[in-house]
């Protein structure tokens, strides 16, 4: 194929994409099409409407708490602005919400609810965890842990877990949305009392049929998990966790719930 004709097609396609994601309906920006006037605008609107509707429906599934917090109308506005500001990079809608939490943090009209972005991070973590690989920890990992110097080992967190530290009580807010009888004045109190929460999210044993669980970590456990996620050695992570962290109880729960992918040689950074 000649380079010139390929360029013609590429430019034609670029112009249609630009017209679809343009902030205003700009038929002038549209490439030459057979249709004109209102019929051309209707055609452009159909493509925009379709792309946006697909993205919005996916975002609703991926951010149920944000949807419940904003309400349908505001969520639609947010979805439409997000779609335009950060057009999808992939054809797989499972990833369409990847940048929504960061985008929410930039939206001025949401400033009064500064926890929204972190709540969106928690929604996204739950969505990701629901489709993550099962844990890979084996007996051999445990035997290695019993036999080798733990200063030279680190624990790998499983893909079906996630932790989200926040300056806001995001777990309290999240759980209130699961509770029809939630007392919103208590939730507001939790916000005003200050103090953030670290959310810990996992899908038990990575089982496809299991529901994803979300809890708030105690401070010591939050420090422990953060250290593991940072790739610390087990001894280093225990030092980071400090007093009040029950390693034996955590490990028992970790194996029962499937929080670990295994043991790796500690590689200091």
């Amino acid at each position, binding site marked *: 194929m000649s380079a010139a004709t390929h360029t013609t097609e590429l430019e034609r*396609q670029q112009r249609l994409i630009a017209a679809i994601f343009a902030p205003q309906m700009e038929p002038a920006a549209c490439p030459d*099409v057979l249709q004109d006037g209102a019929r051309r605008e209707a*055609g452009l609107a159909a493509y925009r409407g379709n792309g946006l509707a697909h993205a919005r429906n996916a975002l609703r599934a991926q951010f149920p708490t944000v949807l419940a917090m904003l309400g349908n109308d505001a969520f639609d506005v947010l979805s439409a602005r997000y779609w335009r500001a950060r057009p999808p*990079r992939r054809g797989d809608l499972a990833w369409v919400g990847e940048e929504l939490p960061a985008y929410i943090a930039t939206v001025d009209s949401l400033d009064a609810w500064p926890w929204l972005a972190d709540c969106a991070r928690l929604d996204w973590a739950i969505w990701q965890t629901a489709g993550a690989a099962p844990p890979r920890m084996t007996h051999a990992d445990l035997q290695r842990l019993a036999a080798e110097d733990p200063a030279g080992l680190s624990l790998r967190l499983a893909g079906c877990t996630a932790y989200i530290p926040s300056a806001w009580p995001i777990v309290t807010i999240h759980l209130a949305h699961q509770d029809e009888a939630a007392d919103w004045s208590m939730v507001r109190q939790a916000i005003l009392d200050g103090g953030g929460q670290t959310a810990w999210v996992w899908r038990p044993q990575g089982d496809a049929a299991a529901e994803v669980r979300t809890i708030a970590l105690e401070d010591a456990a939050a420090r422990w998990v953060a250290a593991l996620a940072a790739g610390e050695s087990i001894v280093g992570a225990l030092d980071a966790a400090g007093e009040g962290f029950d390693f034996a109880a955590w490990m028992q729960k970790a194996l029962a719930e499937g929080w670990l992918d295994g043991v790796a040689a500690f590689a200091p950074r």
Partner: protein
Amino acid sequence: MPAPPLLHGIGLRQPHYREFRALRPPLGFVEVHSENFFNPHDAASQVLAAVRKDYPVSLHGVGLALGSACGLDEHHVRQLAELVARIDPVRISDHACFARAPWGQRGIVHAGDLLPIAYTHASLDILCANVERVQDRLGRPLLVENLSAYLDFPERDFSEPQFFAELGRRSGCGLLLDVNNLYVNALNAAEPDPLQAVCGWISELAREAPPGLVGEIHLAGFSEQQGLIIDDHSRLVAEAVWQAYVHALDCLGPVSTLIEWDEHLPTLSVLLGQAERAGALCAARCETAQAAS
């Protein structure tokens, strides 16, 4: 005389899973959207693996964007290849559309819809290259579906049937003939006799195309919104589309046929009723063919 094989299938959608599992209706195949099953670890993939034990599965993609001049997304191709390896589908299809293009600082973006391509030599080259790349990766042919297009480009080196015939000859892919899309296009083009326009399209394809080009037929319903006919798969198949379908079977012989229904999903029995109607029309053609031979 053995019963002819079942050729009709339905698009399996989430709200029907439970009832479908309980009923296990007689169908030639079920079809799903490939991208909904890219993740091997989620619940949807468990469902599809179980369904696959009882039915041939046709994987219908919506996101490859085979006509994109900027090329394909390697990640998307790889995920499709992995899904194909897991499911061993009876057919694999996507659309003759583009969706990916460079967009300023953001790089290549995906419009999330099936955008029209021009029926030019350059477009055909692009589509052929992309189709061949996917076929090489999968080690098997694709079916490429004709679009319902809401905008058309004036430059044109081929009629649409010629374009698909040529695509098939060059790349070895087949055509997934969406009869409803032809009818939607005829309505949106304000054809004086839309049914005749669709039948003419199909007749031209039958003349131009290599034998066996059409590997599957799609039938669906549409709706009208503000003067534009939208292919939203929201209703019963229109009677005119059934008539065009009969013409297609007359021209092409019996072909595996899918009822697509995505918006305002009906009960499973309504959906199965539409599929059975297609199946009966196919079976009648099979018997005629057997009697003639």
